Protein backbone atom coordinates (compact mmCIF):
# COMPACT_ATOMS: atom_id res chain seq x y z
CA UNK A 1 0.00 0.00 0.00
CA UNK A 2 1.33 3.44 -0.95
CA UNK A 3 1.69 6.09 1.73
CA UNK A 4 0.17 8.84 -0.45
CA UNK A 5 -2.03 8.12 -3.43
CA UNK A 6 -3.82 10.29 -6.00
CA UNK A 7 -6.61 8.55 -7.89
CA UNK A 8 -7.87 10.33 -10.98
CA UNK A 9 -7.49 13.77 -9.33
CA UNK A 10 -8.62 16.85 -11.25
CA UNK A 11 -8.60 20.47 -10.13
CA UNK A 12 -9.80 23.59 -11.89
CA UNK A 13 -9.54 27.26 -10.96
CA UNK A 14 -12.26 29.02 -12.95
CA UNK A 15 -11.85 27.74 -16.49
CA UNK A 16 -8.22 26.77 -16.07
CA UNK A 17 -7.65 23.06 -15.61
CA UNK A 18 -4.60 22.73 -13.32
CA UNK A 19 -4.67 18.99 -12.62
CA UNK A 20 -6.26 16.72 -15.22
CA UNK A 21 -7.02 13.17 -14.01
CA UNK A 22 -3.75 12.65 -12.16
CA UNK A 23 -2.78 9.21 -10.81
CA UNK A 24 0.24 9.04 -8.50
CA UNK A 25 1.54 6.73 -5.78
CA UNK A 26 4.24 7.74 -3.29
CA UNK A 27 5.83 4.97 -1.21
CA UNK A 28 6.99 5.29 2.40
CA UNK A 29 10.62 6.42 2.67
CA UNK A 30 10.72 7.59 -0.93
CA UNK A 31 12.08 10.97 -2.01
CA UNK A 32 9.90 12.21 -4.83
CA UNK A 33 10.57 15.40 -6.78
CA UNK A 34 7.79 17.06 -8.78
CA UNK A 35 9.17 19.29 -11.53
CA UNK A 36 7.35 21.52 -13.96
CA UNK A 37 7.16 25.08 -15.26
CA UNK A 38 6.03 27.94 -13.01
CA UNK A 39 2.25 27.91 -12.72
CA UNK A 40 1.97 24.29 -13.87
CA UNK A 41 0.18 23.21 -10.67
CA UNK A 42 3.02 21.65 -8.67
CA UNK A 43 2.15 23.52 -5.46
CA UNK A 44 -1.53 22.75 -6.02
CA UNK A 45 -0.62 19.06 -6.10
CA UNK A 46 1.36 19.41 -2.88
CA UNK A 47 -1.53 21.17 -1.14
CA UNK A 48 -3.87 18.30 -2.10
CA UNK A 49 -1.60 15.90 -0.17
CA UNK A 50 -2.48 17.63 3.12
CA UNK A 51 -6.04 18.50 2.07
CA UNK A 52 -5.33 22.23 2.03
CA UNK A 53 -7.14 22.01 -1.31
CA UNK A 54 -9.88 19.56 -2.29
CA UNK A 55 -10.03 17.99 -5.76
CA UNK A 56 -12.99 18.70 -8.05
CA UNK A 57 -12.85 15.05 -9.10
CA UNK A 58 -10.91 12.04 -7.87
CA UNK A 59 -9.64 10.88 -4.51
CA UNK A 60 -6.59 11.47 -2.31
CA UNK A 61 -5.41 8.80 0.15
CA UNK A 62 -2.93 8.92 3.02
CA UNK A 63 -1.86 5.67 4.63
CA UNK A 64 -4.78 3.86 3.01
CA UNK A 65 -7.38 6.36 4.27
CA UNK A 66 -9.24 8.74 2.00
CA UNK A 67 -8.54 12.27 3.27
CA UNK A 68 -10.02 14.68 0.70
CA UNK A 69 -13.60 14.68 2.05
CA UNK A 70 -12.59 14.86 5.74
CA UNK A 71 -13.72 17.93 7.74
CA UNK A 72 -11.02 20.22 9.19
CA UNK A 73 -11.36 18.81 12.72
CA UNK A 74 -10.69 15.25 11.54
CA UNK A 75 -7.79 16.40 9.36
CA UNK A 76 -5.83 17.51 12.43
CA UNK A 77 -4.65 13.94 13.16
CA UNK A 78 -3.65 13.44 9.52
CA UNK A 79 -1.82 16.75 9.29
CA UNK A 80 0.19 16.09 12.43
CA UNK A 81 2.00 13.44 10.37
CA UNK A 82 3.11 16.01 7.79
CA UNK A 83 5.69 18.76 7.88
CA UNK A 84 5.24 21.43 5.23
CA UNK A 85 7.96 23.84 4.15
CA UNK A 86 6.23 26.74 2.42
CA UNK A 87 7.84 28.64 -0.43
CA UNK A 88 8.46 31.77 1.66
CA UNK A 89 8.73 29.92 4.95
CA UNK A 90 5.37 31.20 6.27
CA UNK A 91 6.88 31.87 9.70
CA UNK A 92 4.52 33.75 12.03
CA UNK A 93 6.04 37.19 11.96
CA UNK A 94 4.59 38.24 15.31
CA UNK A 95 6.54 35.45 17.08
CA UNK A 96 10.21 34.82 17.75
CA UNK A 97 12.03 31.94 16.06
CA UNK A 98 11.74 29.96 19.29
CA UNK A 99 7.96 30.46 19.50
CA UNK A 100 7.59 29.55 15.82
CA UNK A 101 9.40 26.23 16.24
CA UNK A 102 7.62 25.54 19.52
CA UNK A 103 4.19 26.31 18.03
CA UNK A 104 3.15 22.77 16.94
CA UNK A 105 4.48 21.35 20.22
CA UNK A 106 2.52 23.83 22.34
CA UNK A 107 -0.62 23.25 20.28
CA UNK A 108 -0.57 19.47 20.03
CA UNK A 109 1.40 18.03 22.92
CA UNK A 110 1.28 18.22 26.71
CA UNK A 111 5.04 18.67 27.11
CA UNK A 112 6.41 21.00 29.76
CA UNK A 113 8.06 24.30 28.90
CA UNK A 114 11.52 22.81 29.57
CA UNK A 115 10.86 19.81 27.33
CA UNK A 116 9.62 22.07 24.53
CA UNK A 117 12.65 24.32 24.92
CA UNK A 118 14.94 21.29 24.62
CA UNK A 119 13.20 20.09 21.45
CA UNK A 120 13.35 23.60 19.92
CA UNK A 121 17.06 23.66 20.64
CA UNK A 122 17.56 20.22 19.10
CA UNK A 123 15.60 21.09 15.92
CA UNK A 124 17.42 24.41 15.46
CA UNK A 125 20.74 22.58 15.83
CA UNK A 126 19.60 20.05 13.24
CA UNK A 127 19.07 22.83 10.69
CA UNK A 128 22.33 24.51 11.74
CA UNK A 129 20.86 27.62 13.36
CA UNK A 130 21.14 27.28 17.15
CA UNK A 131 22.03 30.96 17.57
CA UNK A 132 18.85 32.57 16.20
CA UNK A 133 16.20 31.38 18.66
CA UNK A 134 15.52 34.82 20.16
CA UNK A 135 15.34 36.63 16.80
CA UNK A 136 12.21 37.70 14.95
CA UNK A 137 11.62 36.28 11.42
CA UNK A 138 12.12 39.76 9.92
CA UNK A 139 15.72 39.75 11.20
CA UNK A 140 16.60 36.57 9.29
CA UNK A 141 17.89 36.14 5.74
CA UNK A 142 15.82 34.22 3.17
CA UNK A 143 17.87 31.05 3.64
CA UNK A 144 17.74 31.26 7.43
CA UNK A 145 13.99 31.76 7.31
CA UNK A 146 13.59 28.57 5.28
CA UNK A 147 15.77 26.63 7.67
CA UNK A 148 13.79 27.86 10.67
CA UNK A 149 10.58 26.94 8.82
CA UNK A 150 12.07 23.50 8.28
CA UNK A 151 12.88 23.22 11.99
CA UNK A 152 9.22 24.03 12.70
CA UNK A 153 8.05 21.51 10.08
CA UNK A 154 9.99 18.70 11.78
CA UNK A 155 9.12 19.67 15.36
CA UNK A 156 6.44 16.97 15.66
CA UNK A 157 8.68 14.41 13.91
CA UNK A 158 6.44 13.91 10.90
CA UNK A 159 6.36 10.86 8.63
CA UNK A 160 6.27 13.03 5.49
CA UNK A 161 7.90 16.37 4.72
CA UNK A 162 6.53 18.40 1.83
CA UNK A 163 8.85 21.04 0.38
CA UNK A 164 7.35 23.80 -1.78
CA UNK A 165 10.14 25.32 -3.90
CA UNK A 166 12.73 25.02 -1.11
CA UNK A 167 15.58 26.64 -3.06
CA UNK A 168 13.69 29.40 -4.88
CA UNK A 169 15.10 32.87 -4.27
CA UNK A 170 18.34 31.63 -2.72
CA UNK A 171 21.87 32.01 -4.06
CA UNK A 172 23.49 28.75 -5.27
CA UNK A 173 25.44 28.19 -2.05
CA UNK A 174 22.45 28.68 0.23
CA UNK A 175 20.34 26.58 -2.15
CA UNK A 176 22.90 23.79 -1.77
CA UNK A 177 22.74 24.09 2.03
CA UNK A 178 18.98 23.50 1.82
CA UNK A 179 19.54 20.49 -0.49
CA UNK A 180 22.05 19.02 1.96
CA UNK A 181 19.59 19.62 4.77
CA UNK A 182 16.85 17.73 2.90
CA UNK A 183 19.24 14.79 2.43
CA UNK A 184 20.29 14.96 6.08
CA UNK A 185 16.68 14.86 7.30
CA UNK A 186 15.96 11.91 5.02
CA UNK A 187 18.98 10.06 6.38
CA UNK A 188 18.50 10.89 10.05
CA UNK A 189 14.72 11.01 10.42
CA UNK A 190 13.88 8.38 7.74
CA UNK A 191 11.04 10.53 6.44
CA UNK A 192 9.21 10.42 3.12
CA UNK A 193 9.98 13.59 1.16
CA UNK A 194 8.03 15.26 -1.61
CA UNK A 195 9.86 18.21 -3.15
CA UNK A 196 8.29 20.61 -5.63
CA UNK A 197 10.90 22.52 -7.60
CA UNK A 198 11.97 23.84 -10.96
CA UNK A 199 15.61 23.84 -9.88
CA UNK A 200 17.02 20.81 -11.74
CA UNK A 201 20.25 20.77 -9.77
CA UNK A 202 18.20 20.41 -6.60
CA UNK A 203 15.93 17.80 -8.21
CA UNK A 204 18.88 15.60 -9.25
CA UNK A 205 20.51 15.95 -5.85
CA UNK A 206 17.62 15.17 -3.52
CA UNK A 207 15.29 12.99 -5.58
CA UNK A 208 15.32 9.25 -6.04
CA UNK A 209 12.27 9.58 -8.28
CA UNK A 210 11.25 12.52 -10.47
CA UNK A 211 7.84 13.22 -12.03
CA UNK A 212 7.08 16.08 -14.39
CA UNK A 213 3.80 17.98 -14.46
CA UNK A 214 2.93 19.62 -17.76
CA UNK A 215 -0.44 21.17 -18.72
CA UNK A 216 -2.24 19.27 -16.00
CA UNK A 217 -0.76 15.84 -16.81
CA UNK A 218 2.12 13.84 -15.41
CA UNK A 219 4.17 13.40 -18.57
CA UNK A 220 7.20 11.73 -17.01
CA UNK A 221 7.91 9.41 -14.09
CA UNK A 222 11.39 7.97 -13.54
CA UNK A 223 14.71 8.04 -11.73
CA UNK A 224 17.16 10.96 -12.07
CA UNK A 225 19.21 8.80 -14.45
CA UNK A 226 16.16 8.17 -16.62
CA UNK A 227 15.45 11.93 -16.67
CA UNK A 228 18.95 12.63 -17.99
CA UNK A 229 18.56 9.94 -20.66
CA UNK A 230 15.00 10.70 -21.77
CA UNK A 231 14.20 11.66 -25.35
CA UNK A 232 10.90 13.30 -24.38
CA UNK A 233 11.39 16.78 -25.92
CA UNK A 234 9.39 18.65 -23.25
CA UNK A 235 11.33 17.04 -20.41
CA UNK A 236 14.66 17.54 -22.19
CA UNK A 237 13.96 21.22 -22.82
CA UNK A 238 13.00 21.70 -19.16
CA UNK A 239 16.11 19.90 -17.91
CA UNK A 240 18.53 21.97 -20.02
CA UNK A 241 16.49 25.17 -19.53
CA UNK A 242 15.79 25.90 -23.17
CA UNK A 243 12.80 27.98 -24.33
CA UNK A 244 10.57 26.37 -26.97
CA UNK A 245 9.65 27.74 -30.40
CA UNK A 246 6.21 28.72 -29.06
CA UNK A 247 7.71 30.70 -26.17
CA UNK A 248 10.13 32.53 -28.46
CA UNK A 249 7.42 33.39 -30.97
CA UNK A 250 5.88 35.85 -28.49
CA UNK A 251 9.19 37.73 -28.22
CA UNK A 252 9.72 38.26 -31.96
CA UNK A 253 9.23 41.85 -33.25
CA UNK A 254 5.78 42.42 -34.74
CA UNK A 255 6.73 45.46 -36.92
CA UNK A 256 9.51 46.25 -39.38
Amino acid at each position, binding site marked *: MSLIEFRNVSKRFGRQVVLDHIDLQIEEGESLVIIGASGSGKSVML*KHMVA*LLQPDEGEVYFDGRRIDPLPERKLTRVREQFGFL*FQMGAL*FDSMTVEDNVAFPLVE*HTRRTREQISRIVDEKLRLVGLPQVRRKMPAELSGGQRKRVALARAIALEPRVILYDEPTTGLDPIRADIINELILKLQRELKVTSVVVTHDMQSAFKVGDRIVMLHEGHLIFDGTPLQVRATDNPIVRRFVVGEAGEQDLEALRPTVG
Partner: protein
Amino acid sequence: MPLRVVERVGGRTTELLDNFGDFCIFVGHTFAWLLGGLFNVKHWRLLLPQFYEVGVRSVPVVGVVGAFIGMVMAVETYATFAAIGQESRVGSVINVSVVKQIGPVLAAVMLAGRVGGALAAELGTMRVTEQIDALRVMGSDPIRYLVVPRFIACVLLTPILTAYSDVLGILGGWVIAVFSLHVPNQAYWYYSTHGGVGTWQIMEGICKAFLFGGAIALISCYKGFNSGSGASGVGRACTEGFVASFIAIIILNFIFAEASQQMYQAIYGLKSIFG
Protein backbone atom coordinates in the same frame (compact mmCIF):
# COMPACT_ATOMS: atom_id res chain seq x y z
CA MET B 1 -28.27 44.93 -24.65
CA PRO B 2 -31.06 44.72 -21.99
CA LEU B 3 -30.29 41.00 -21.70
CA ARG B 4 -26.67 41.80 -20.92
CA VAL B 5 -27.73 44.23 -18.19
CA VAL B 6 -30.01 41.57 -16.67
CA GLU B 7 -27.16 39.07 -16.89
CA ARG B 8 -24.78 41.46 -15.15
CA VAL B 9 -27.27 42.32 -12.40
CA GLY B 10 -28.01 38.62 -11.93
CA GLY B 11 -24.32 37.78 -11.79
CA ARG B 12 -23.61 40.50 -9.26
CA THR B 13 -26.60 39.45 -7.10
CA THR B 14 -25.46 35.82 -7.12
CA GLU B 15 -21.95 36.92 -6.16
CA LEU B 16 -23.28 39.05 -3.28
CA LEU B 17 -25.46 36.21 -1.99
CA ASP B 18 -22.53 33.84 -2.33
CA ASN B 19 -20.31 36.17 -0.28
CA PHE B 20 -23.04 36.64 2.32
CA GLY B 21 -23.42 32.85 2.58
CA ASP B 22 -19.65 32.53 3.07
CA PHE B 23 -19.76 35.23 5.73
CA CYS B 24 -22.58 33.41 7.57
CA ILE B 25 -20.56 30.16 7.54
CA PHE B 26 -17.55 32.11 8.83
CA VAL B 27 -19.65 33.59 11.65
CA GLY B 28 -21.06 30.12 12.42
CA HIS B 29 -17.55 28.64 12.69
CA THR B 30 -16.46 31.52 14.92
CA PHE B 31 -19.35 30.94 17.34
CA ALA B 32 -18.81 27.17 17.29
CA TRP B 33 -15.14 27.62 18.26
CA LEU B 34 -16.06 30.36 20.72
CA LEU B 35 -18.41 28.07 22.64
CA GLY B 36 -16.17 25.02 22.24
CA GLY B 37 -13.00 26.76 23.40
CA LEU B 38 -14.40 29.00 26.11
CA PHE B 39 -13.43 26.65 28.94
CA ASN B 40 -10.07 25.62 27.50
CA VAL B 41 -7.52 27.50 29.62
CA LYS B 42 -4.87 26.86 26.93
CA HIS B 43 -6.69 29.26 24.60
CA TRP B 44 -6.83 32.11 27.11
CA ARG B 45 -3.18 32.99 26.54
CA LEU B 46 -4.17 34.22 23.06
CA LEU B 47 -6.42 36.90 24.54
CA LEU B 48 -3.93 39.13 26.32
CA PRO B 49 -2.08 40.42 23.21
CA GLN B 50 -5.45 41.14 21.57
CA PHE B 51 -6.70 43.01 24.63
CA TYR B 52 -3.59 45.16 24.43
CA GLU B 53 -3.92 45.70 20.67
CA VAL B 54 -7.65 46.44 20.65
CA GLY B 55 -8.01 48.12 24.03
CA VAL B 56 -4.87 49.80 25.31
CA ARG B 57 -3.71 51.07 21.93
CA SER B 58 -7.12 52.56 21.15
CA VAL B 59 -7.30 54.62 24.35
CA PRO B 60 -5.73 57.86 22.99
CA VAL B 61 -7.70 58.05 19.75
CA VAL B 62 -11.06 57.15 21.32
CA GLY B 63 -10.42 59.62 24.15
CA VAL B 64 -9.61 62.52 21.83
CA VAL B 65 -12.65 61.83 19.64
CA GLY B 66 -14.95 61.53 22.71
CA ALA B 67 -13.76 64.80 24.26
CA PHE B 68 -14.12 66.77 21.05
CA ILE B 69 -17.60 65.37 20.36
CA GLY B 70 -18.78 66.75 23.70
CA MET B 71 -17.12 70.10 23.00
CA VAL B 72 -18.65 70.41 19.52
CA MET B 73 -22.08 69.42 20.85
CA ALA B 74 -21.84 72.20 23.46
CA VAL B 75 -20.91 74.83 20.88
CA GLU B 76 -23.61 73.73 18.41
CA THR B 77 -26.54 73.32 20.81
CA TYR B 78 -25.87 76.35 22.99
CA ALA B 79 -26.89 78.91 20.33
CA THR B 80 -30.22 77.14 19.63
CA PHE B 81 -31.07 76.80 23.32
CA ALA B 82 -30.02 80.38 24.09
CA ALA B 83 -32.38 81.66 21.36
CA ILE B 84 -35.36 80.25 23.29
CA GLY B 85 -33.94 81.17 26.70
CA GLN B 86 -33.24 77.58 27.73
CA GLU B 87 -29.44 77.62 27.77
CA SER B 88 -29.33 76.20 31.31
CA ARG B 89 -30.86 72.96 29.94
CA VAL B 90 -28.14 72.49 27.34
CA GLY B 91 -26.45 69.79 29.45
CA SER B 92 -29.33 67.36 29.03
CA VAL B 93 -29.12 67.42 25.23
CA ILE B 94 -25.32 67.25 25.12
CA ASN B 95 -25.10 64.35 27.54
CA VAL B 96 -28.02 62.34 26.16
CA SER B 97 -26.60 62.69 22.63
CA VAL B 98 -23.10 61.75 23.76
CA VAL B 99 -24.16 58.76 25.85
CA LYS B 100 -26.88 57.35 23.58
CA GLN B 101 -25.84 58.06 20.04
CA ILE B 102 -22.79 60.03 19.02
CA GLY B 103 -20.46 58.61 21.65
CA PRO B 104 -21.00 54.90 20.89
CA VAL B 105 -21.28 55.39 17.13
CA LEU B 106 -18.18 57.54 16.75
CA ALA B 107 -16.17 55.36 19.13
CA ALA B 108 -17.19 52.34 17.02
CA VAL B 109 -16.31 54.13 13.78
CA MET B 110 -12.90 55.03 15.20
CA LEU B 111 -12.39 51.40 16.22
CA ALA B 112 -13.53 50.20 12.79
CA GLY B 113 -10.78 52.37 11.29
CA ARG B 114 -8.04 51.65 13.80
CA VAL B 115 -8.71 48.10 14.93
CA GLY B 116 -10.76 46.83 11.94
CA GLY B 117 -8.18 48.11 9.46
CA ALA B 118 -5.36 46.52 11.43
CA LEU B 119 -7.21 43.19 11.69
CA ALA B 120 -7.96 43.04 7.96
CA ALA B 121 -4.37 44.03 7.10
CA GLU B 122 -2.81 41.56 9.53
CA LEU B 123 -4.94 38.59 8.52
CA GLY B 124 -4.75 39.56 4.84
CA THR B 125 -0.96 39.60 5.01
CA MET B 126 -1.00 36.28 6.85
CA ARG B 127 -3.11 34.82 4.06
CA VAL B 128 -0.92 36.21 1.28
CA THR B 129 2.27 34.94 2.96
CA GLU B 130 0.68 31.50 3.53
CA GLN B 131 0.76 31.84 7.33
CA ILE B 132 -2.93 30.87 7.50
CA ASP B 133 -2.20 27.75 5.40
CA ALA B 134 0.73 27.03 7.73
CA LEU B 135 -1.65 27.10 10.71
CA ARG B 136 -3.99 24.65 8.98
CA VAL B 137 -1.13 22.34 8.02
CA MET B 138 0.00 22.30 11.65
CA GLY B 139 -3.48 21.17 12.64
CA SER B 140 -4.60 24.47 14.22
CA ASP B 141 -7.87 25.92 13.01
CA PRO B 142 -7.17 29.53 11.91
CA ILE B 143 -10.63 30.65 13.02
CA ARG B 144 -10.03 29.33 16.53
CA TYR B 145 -6.49 30.64 16.68
CA LEU B 146 -6.87 34.02 14.93
CA VAL B 147 -10.51 35.08 14.80
CA VAL B 148 -11.95 34.01 18.17
CA PRO B 149 -9.45 35.94 20.36
CA ARG B 150 -9.88 39.06 18.22
CA PHE B 151 -13.66 38.71 18.34
CA ILE B 152 -13.66 38.35 22.15
CA ALA B 153 -11.34 41.36 22.54
CA CYS B 154 -13.51 43.56 20.31
CA VAL B 155 -16.79 42.47 21.93
CA LEU B 156 -15.54 42.99 25.48
CA LEU B 157 -13.49 46.13 24.97
CA THR B 158 -15.67 48.20 22.64
CA PRO B 159 -18.22 48.85 25.46
CA ILE B 160 -15.40 49.79 27.86
CA LEU B 161 -13.88 52.14 25.31
CA THR B 162 -17.35 53.55 24.62
CA ALA B 163 -17.87 54.24 28.34
CA TYR B 164 -14.48 55.94 28.43
CA SER B 165 -15.34 57.99 25.34
CA ASP B 166 -18.70 58.93 26.96
CA VAL B 167 -16.97 60.16 30.11
CA LEU B 168 -14.57 62.33 28.13
CA GLY B 169 -17.45 63.56 25.92
CA ILE B 170 -19.43 64.60 28.99
CA LEU B 171 -16.37 66.34 30.46
CA GLY B 172 -15.61 68.06 27.12
CA GLY B 173 -19.19 69.36 26.85
CA TRP B 174 -19.17 70.52 30.48
CA VAL B 175 -15.87 72.41 30.10
CA ILE B 176 -17.11 74.35 27.06
CA ALA B 177 -20.67 74.92 28.36
CA VAL B 178 -19.70 76.03 31.86
CA PHE B 179 -16.32 77.71 31.44
CA SER B 180 -16.60 79.14 27.94
CA LEU B 181 -20.35 79.68 27.42
CA HIS B 182 -21.06 80.45 31.10
CA VAL B 183 -23.95 78.05 31.63
CA PRO B 184 -24.54 77.78 35.41
CA ASN B 185 -22.73 74.69 36.70
CA GLN B 186 -25.50 73.50 39.00
CA ALA B 187 -28.21 73.86 36.36
CA TYR B 188 -26.00 72.09 33.81
CA TRP B 189 -25.77 68.93 35.94
CA TYR B 190 -29.30 69.20 37.33
CA TYR B 191 -30.92 69.15 33.89
CA SER B 192 -28.45 66.53 32.66
CA THR B 193 -29.72 64.04 35.18
CA HIS B 194 -33.35 65.12 35.57
CA GLY B 195 -35.10 64.09 32.36
CA GLY B 196 -31.74 63.74 30.60
CA VAL B 197 -29.27 60.95 31.18
CA GLY B 198 -30.46 57.96 33.20
CA THR B 199 -29.46 54.34 33.56
CA TRP B 200 -31.48 53.43 30.46
CA GLN B 201 -29.61 55.90 28.23
CA ILE B 202 -26.21 54.83 29.52
CA MET B 203 -27.02 51.14 29.14
CA GLU B 204 -28.41 51.69 25.65
CA GLY B 205 -25.09 53.14 24.52
CA ILE B 206 -23.07 50.43 26.22
CA CYS B 207 -25.27 47.56 24.97
CA LYS B 208 -25.07 48.63 21.35
CA ALA B 209 -21.29 48.86 21.72
CA PHE B 210 -21.21 45.05 22.22
CA LEU B 211 -22.93 44.64 18.85
CA PHE B 212 -20.64 47.17 17.16
CA GLY B 213 -17.54 45.44 18.53
CA GLY B 214 -18.74 42.05 17.32
CA ALA B 215 -19.60 43.39 13.87
CA ILE B 216 -16.21 45.13 13.48
CA ALA B 217 -14.29 41.98 14.44
CA LEU B 218 -16.28 39.56 12.29
CA ILE B 219 -16.37 41.76 9.19
CA SER B 220 -12.70 42.79 9.36
CA CYS B 221 -11.46 39.26 10.05
CA TYR B 222 -13.63 37.88 7.23
CA LYS B 223 -12.25 40.45 4.79
CA GLY B 224 -8.69 39.67 5.89
CA PHE B 225 -9.27 35.93 5.53
CA ASN B 226 -10.55 36.41 1.99
CA SER B 227 -8.01 39.00 0.93
CA GLY B 228 -6.79 38.97 -2.66
CA SER B 229 -3.15 38.34 -3.46
CA GLY B 230 -0.41 40.97 -3.22
CA ALA B 231 -0.27 44.39 -1.63
CA SER B 232 -3.29 45.63 -3.59
CA GLY B 233 -5.37 42.67 -2.39
CA VAL B 234 -4.54 43.40 1.25
CA GLY B 235 -5.19 47.12 0.73
CA ARG B 236 -8.58 46.37 -0.82
CA ALA B 237 -9.44 44.03 2.09
CA CYS B 238 -8.71 46.87 4.56
CA THR B 239 -10.83 49.39 2.66
CA GLU B 240 -13.71 46.94 2.19
CA GLY B 241 -13.45 45.91 5.84
CA PHE B 242 -13.76 49.50 7.04
CA VAL B 243 -16.59 50.43 4.65
CA ALA B 244 -18.60 47.28 5.46
CA SER B 245 -18.02 47.77 9.22
CA PHE B 246 -19.11 51.40 8.98
CA ILE B 247 -22.31 50.48 7.12
CA ALA B 248 -22.99 47.67 9.62
CA ILE B 249 -22.55 50.12 12.55
CA ILE B 250 -25.00 52.59 11.02
CA ILE B 251 -27.61 49.91 10.24
CA LEU B 252 -27.23 48.18 13.62
CA ASN B 253 -27.52 51.57 15.33
CA PHE B 254 -30.82 52.26 13.58
CA ILE B 255 -32.23 48.82 14.40
CA PHE B 256 -31.07 49.10 18.01
CA ALA B 257 -32.43 52.66 18.39
CA GLU B 258 -35.83 51.58 17.03
CA ALA B 259 -36.02 48.53 19.32
CA SER B 260 -34.79 50.45 22.34
CA GLN B 261 -37.25 53.29 21.76
CA GLN B 262 -40.17 50.86 21.54
CA MET B 263 -39.08 49.17 24.76
CA TYR B 264 -38.53 52.47 26.56
CA GLN B 265 -41.94 53.81 25.61
CA ALA B 266 -43.60 50.55 26.59
CA ILE B 267 -41.98 50.74 30.04
CA TYR B 268 -41.80 54.48 30.84
CA GLY B 269 -44.03 56.17 28.23
CA LEU B 270 -42.97 59.40 26.48
CA LYS B 271 -40.73 61.77 28.43
CA SER B 272 -39.85 65.35 27.55
CA ILE B 273 -36.51 66.90 28.30
CA PHE B 274 -38.41 70.13 29.12
CA GLY B 275 -40.65 68.26 31.57
